[in-house]
């Protein structure tokens, strides 16, 4: 066991030494002139990719370059929900792989990510919606994922404070995934960064990519604000800025960037155990360990890189919350934030090679990037290391739109502002 491994003994040792022996969790690496693999984007997905590349695929010279600082992007701007209650063949195995990785994450990276499987309950409010959830639950159980259909009595016993007398949107029941829950978003970024760093990955912060060098049709390096870096392979994991960075290599993507707002209330005593979603509108809520209600709703619905939203969506989210649980009406909102989402045209992600040799893409995470973090990293690492898709990510291809093979989870087609 190396000296910088976190454990109950290291906690005890530092407690007795006045907390003087802790080292930085990762090195502040300076860019070298060349790497085997460069990951552009030091968010959850980029760091997870680097970690799995080093830990499972034995990659040696790997760097993550990040424009700002680790954890300053969307991984620090979300509502921390993890779940795998998906419907379609392209998504179900992928998100279940992610769920299984969450379950072993803290042991894998030796970091407390506060993974808490408190359950995710999707409520339904009409017969048609119940049928849709029965179908979704069956699809999940057929593929070995836990799903439980609750009737109104069961939901009422679990969450007595919801508004069951709502004339317009009566709560008839819900689909429960008990293994779903939440994880601490910052700890996920820091934990992956530390674990990757321990395996020799260079994490280069404050290093914005300003160009992608292409020689004879092959991507061979990047220009950055800290100099040019050569690379054997380049993986883009840039979340909201996917289109901008891909444009440096002359690529257009089936992606629009939209802003998604989320909210935290003042701290309250614990009363919401798991994650609850309101089926009659887009609203989801959980309670953090500090007691704040964490909730969100739809994207603002128009292209934006602003990292801030507008009032109509705030109003809509609060209306949905009030329709679901009128008791939160007197709770004060503490803060809210907006993250830039790379909304793909079918609402599902893309992990694939690009038409340019040596350039790989991990993008299109829409609302769902956080829960996907471990599997996204694993699949992208597999693709970068082996040049073929990971078995659970074979349908998440870039050319699926042109081929008519979209993974249209929400069934709203090529309208990113409706996903």
């Amino acid at each position, binding site marked *: 066991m190396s000296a910088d491994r976190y454990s109950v003994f290291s906690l005890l040792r530092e407690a007795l030494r006045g907390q003087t022996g802790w080292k930085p969790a990762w090195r502040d690496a300076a860019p070298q002139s060349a790497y085997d693999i460069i990951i552009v984007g030091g968010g959850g997905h980029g760091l997870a990719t680097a970690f799995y590349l080093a830990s499972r695929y034995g990659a040696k010279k790997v760097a993550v370059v990040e424009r700002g600082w680790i954890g300053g992007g969307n991984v620090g701007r979300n509502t921390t929900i993890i779940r795998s209650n998906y419907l379609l063949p392209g998504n179900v195995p992928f998100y279940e792989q992610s769920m299984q990785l969450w379950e072993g994450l803290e042991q894998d990276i030796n970091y407390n990510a506060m993974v808490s499987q408190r359950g995710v309950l999707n409520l339904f409010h009409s017969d048609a919606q119940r049928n849709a959830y029965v179908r979704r639950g069956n699809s999940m159980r057929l593929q070995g994922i836990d799903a439980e259909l609750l009737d109104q009595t069961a939901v009422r016993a679990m969450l007595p404070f919801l508004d069951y007398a709502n004339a317009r949107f009566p709560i008839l029941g819900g689909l429960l995934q008990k293994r779903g829950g939440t994880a601490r978003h910052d700890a996920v970024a820091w934990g992956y960064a530390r674990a990757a760093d321990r395996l020799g990955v260079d994490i280069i912060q404050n290093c914005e990519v300003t160009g992608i060098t292409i020689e004879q049709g092959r991507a061979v390096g990047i220009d950055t604000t800290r100099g040019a870096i050569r690379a054997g392979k380049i993986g883009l994991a840039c979340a909201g800025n996917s*289109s*901008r960075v891909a444009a440096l290599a002359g690529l257009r993507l089936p992606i629009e960037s939209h802003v998604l707002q989320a909210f935290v209330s003042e701290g309250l005593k614990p009363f919401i155990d798991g994650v609850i979603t309101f089926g009659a509108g887009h609203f989801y809520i959980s309670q953090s360990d500090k007691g704040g209600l964490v909730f969100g709703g739809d994207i603002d619905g*128009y292209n*934006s890189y*602003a990292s801030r939203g507008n*009032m*109509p969506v705030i109003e809509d989210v609060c209306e949905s919350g009030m329709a679901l649980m009128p008791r939160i009406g007197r709770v004060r909102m503490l803060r809210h934030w907006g993250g830039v989402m790379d909304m793909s*045209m079918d609402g599902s992600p893309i992990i694939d090679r690009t038409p340019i040799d040596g350039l790989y893409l991990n993008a299109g995470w829409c609302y769902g990037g956080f829960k996907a973090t471990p599997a996204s990293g694993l699949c992208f690492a597999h693709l970068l290391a082996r040049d073929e898709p990971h078995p659970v990510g074979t349908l998440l291809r870039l050319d699926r739109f*042109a081929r008519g093979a979209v993974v249209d989870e929400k069934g709203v087609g090529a309208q990113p*502002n409706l996903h």
Partner: protein
Amino acid sequence: MRIPCVCCGDRGVDEFSYLGDATRHRPTDGGAVPTAAWSDYVYLRDNPAGPHKELWYHGSGCRSWLVVTRDTRTHAILGVALARDVALARDAS
């Protein structure tokens, strides 16, 4: 965010619906055969960080279709025109 509608003046964004990029042009071949031009039109986007020409519908006002030029980094509105006028000007040129 407020949008200065050509007909109604400065109005709140919740009066409008968004349709997306106004610079794309539908191929004119009827679409019986799938082509690269069609998949580009339906799926690919420039998605710029900066000025962006986009279609907005003033459904709670004059019901006009507008072409709004907006900076996607700041939400600043740089210009508004009737979509009809934009289309006529394009066809004339």
